[in-house]
């Protein structure tokens, strides 16, 4: 339509010089002369031709970090004050093949827990769901019929964290009673006796990623007592203890490089080699470090399972598959780490190459409680007690947008598998779905009667589970 206007005004449609470039900085194709009113869809046809893709891949396009949503004329030249004379570098980024549909309705409210639900988690292949609660039980739910399947009793105090093993065959739960218990999700029975050792409660659990150890027998647990223990779940003993933090350890992550990353209330992040020796200490935060996230978190979690839902043939197969997915997700750059803290800031680290942060992400006005990388590693979302969710660039740490809408502290954020949507759980008893393209609120999901403590989007993207203080586990679907 703008074209017809221009023609009516007696001028030719404007031409621009453009150069395609991949996200890693490689140039693709020759510089082109394109009409200024070319749309994102037309650009994507062009780029598919240049890359000689057999199938048509979806792409998103950026000029100077600004996304082309409608046409170049509208978004870049008029919006960004770029002249039409110089060469525009159009950065293309592949998007997920599949699209996750936004969850819109509550398909069931599962009652059963007699205290607040403290953690929910889908298994890596998305076929199983478990929840841990303040009533000392772990419950495993049947996702097909959306009914309770097993109630795992054993803990003597609140179950604070649960974690599925990467092969989905074992569920670990850490509790306020200082123990870790392992459960068989097929029978709901406890495997062996509890893993004792910690002197205070368990704050977080992490399994070793599949592509390093497909046997899925090593588990790291962090505790309030300031130590991290690594357990062999088959031999049922503690392999080694990582003691070095001088205050409670808040979060433990097992990185894709095989090292263990821990954040602590002593203001530091420590990196440990797989044999238990200290590799590096990252300091910079001025207060407790609350949370860690990797740019590869999504593939580390899902391991060998991708969106096609194919089961790996064996351990070796799982390993190669997981390794391939990990390398794809990592891309050319190194694995990045982001840490959120009580000093209201986050740091973006390149932990293997430097002890200095890449960027300091400032902007929140209260404690940052949770950070999360998008599955494609391009964006960071942070949940803060200042009622907002903020979006940051995953590579540079630059601020992108602030998502406002919650009226109380935001506890957790959670990405859809295709990185096109974000879900946030808040103290104000709602879940909110945010659209990443428009950076606006897409949907609001009221329904919980009280604070929502935990939320998880299944890796396949078909459902969301949330639990909170009202003791109900809710499953949300499209």
């Amino acid at each position, binding site marked *: 339509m703008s074209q017809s206007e221009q023609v009516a005004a007696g001028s030719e449609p404007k031409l621009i010089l453009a150069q395609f470039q991949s996200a890693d900085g490689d140039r693709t194709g020759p510089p082109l002369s394109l009409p200024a009113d070319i749309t994102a869809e037309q650009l994507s046809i062009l780029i598919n031709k240049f890359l000689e893709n057999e199938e048509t891949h979806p792409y998103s396009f950026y000029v100077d970090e600004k996304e082309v949503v409608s046409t170049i004329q509208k978004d870049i030249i008029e919006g960004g004050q770029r002249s039409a004379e110089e060469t525009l570098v159009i950065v293309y980024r592949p998007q997920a093949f599949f699209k996750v549909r936004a969850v819109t309705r509550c398909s069931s409210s599962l009652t059963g827990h007699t*205290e*607040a639900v*403290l*953690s929910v988690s889908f298994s890596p292949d998305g076929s199983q769901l478990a929840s841990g*609660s*303040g*009533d*000392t039980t772990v419950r495993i739910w049947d996702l097909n019929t959306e009914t309770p399947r097993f109630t795992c009793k054993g803990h*003597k*105090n*609140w179950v*604070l*964290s649960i974690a599925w093993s990467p092969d989905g065959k074992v569920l670990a739960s850490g509790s306020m009673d200082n123990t870790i218990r392992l459960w068989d999700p097929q029978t709901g029975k406890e495997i062996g006796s509890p893993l004792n050792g910690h002197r205070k*409660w*368990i*704050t*977080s659990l992490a399994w070793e990623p599949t592509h390093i150890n497909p046997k899925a027998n090593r588990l790291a647990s962090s505790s*309030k007592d300031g130590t991290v223990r690594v357990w062999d779940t088959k031999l049922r003993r503690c392999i080694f203890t990582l003691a070095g933090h001088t205050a*409670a350890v*808040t979060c433990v992550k097992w990185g894709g490089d095989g090292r263990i990353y821990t954040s602590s*209330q002593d203001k530091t992040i420590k990196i440990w080699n797989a044999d238990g020796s200290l590799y590096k200490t990252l300091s910079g935060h001025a207060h*407790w470090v*609350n*949370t860690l996230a990797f740019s590869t978190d999504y593939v580390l979690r899902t391991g060998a399972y991708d969106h096609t839902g194919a089961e790996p043939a064996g351990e070796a197969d799982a390993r190669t598959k997981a390794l391939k997915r990990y390398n794809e997700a990592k891309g050319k750059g190194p694995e990045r780490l982001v840490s959120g803290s009580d000093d209201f800031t986050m740091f973006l680290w390149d932990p293997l190459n430097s002890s200095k942060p890449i960027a300091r992400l400032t902007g929140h006005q209260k404690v940052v*409680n*949770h950070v999360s990388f998008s599955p494609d590693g391009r964006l960071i979302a942070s949940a803060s007690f200042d009622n907002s969710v903020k979006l940051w660039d995953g590579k540079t740490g630059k601020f992108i947008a602030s998502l406002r809408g*919650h*009226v*109380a502290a935001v*506890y957790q954020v959670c990405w859809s598998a295709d990185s096109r949507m974000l879900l946030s759980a*808040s*103290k*104000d*008893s*709602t879940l909110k779905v945010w659209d990443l393209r428009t950076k606006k609120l897409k949907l*609001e999901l*009221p*329904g*919980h*009667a*009280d*604070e929502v*403590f*935990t939320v998880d989007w299944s890796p396949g993207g078909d459902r969301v589970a949330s639990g909170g*203080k*009202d*003791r109900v586990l809710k499953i949300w679907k499209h």
Partner: protein
Amino acid sequence: MPQNEYIEESIRRHGRRLDHDERKRKKEARKVHKDAAFAQKVHGLKAKLYNKKRHAEKIQMKKTIKMHDEKNAKQKTDDVVPEGAVPAYLLDREGQQRAKVLSNMLKQKRKEKAGKWNVPLPKVRGIAEDEMFKVVKTGKSKSKSWKRMVTKPTFVGDGFTRKPPKYERFIRPMALRYKKANVTHPELKATFQLPIIGVKKNPQSPMYTQLGVLTKGTIIEVNVAELGLVTTGGKVLWGKYAQITNSPENDGCINALLLV
């Protein structure tokens, strides 16, 4: 009358008599018998006073004994699961959290089901019109008496403008107007001074409701925005009902209990 502290002075100078401690012990030991004899003998008002004192003493004694028993008994806390579970990321923040967390919506809901008008003060004393209103004589020779002055505290909204004297049937004196109430949250046992939004119902009569009269038992709406309560839909609650529990006309302030 004794001058100065001569007894203490003497003790300081010469010490106590040698059998002081023994005498003291014996006196203590005999005291119970003496008290018992006195309790039997005493009558009249003295008996009443004495028994009251003795009763209070006994209660105190029993409490102390019980406290000692509890202290000595072995506690079985290991298998008791504390209520109010919170996720790991909130565990160390409990101090900050609990001070402001008020929204136990679940309890609120349950109460709502029990009866919406289950208020703390179900019955109030009736107030007659001639207690509520004072007749104001008007007219050149003060022969007309259609005008009334409200003699109780009132709430008058912000936008209210008085009518011209000719049409103003009810006068609400400036000195008896209130804008704030001391509202107690029953579950938190904490009191906040909150602005009044309006008078929901005065149980005396609908006319008093209309006039905004604040008497004991009146349901008022207060602004609870600063308490940070949230609805199930995730919106901030700002108006909530409270019932007046004191007699504002006697006390000069308004104390109310939040209805949750």
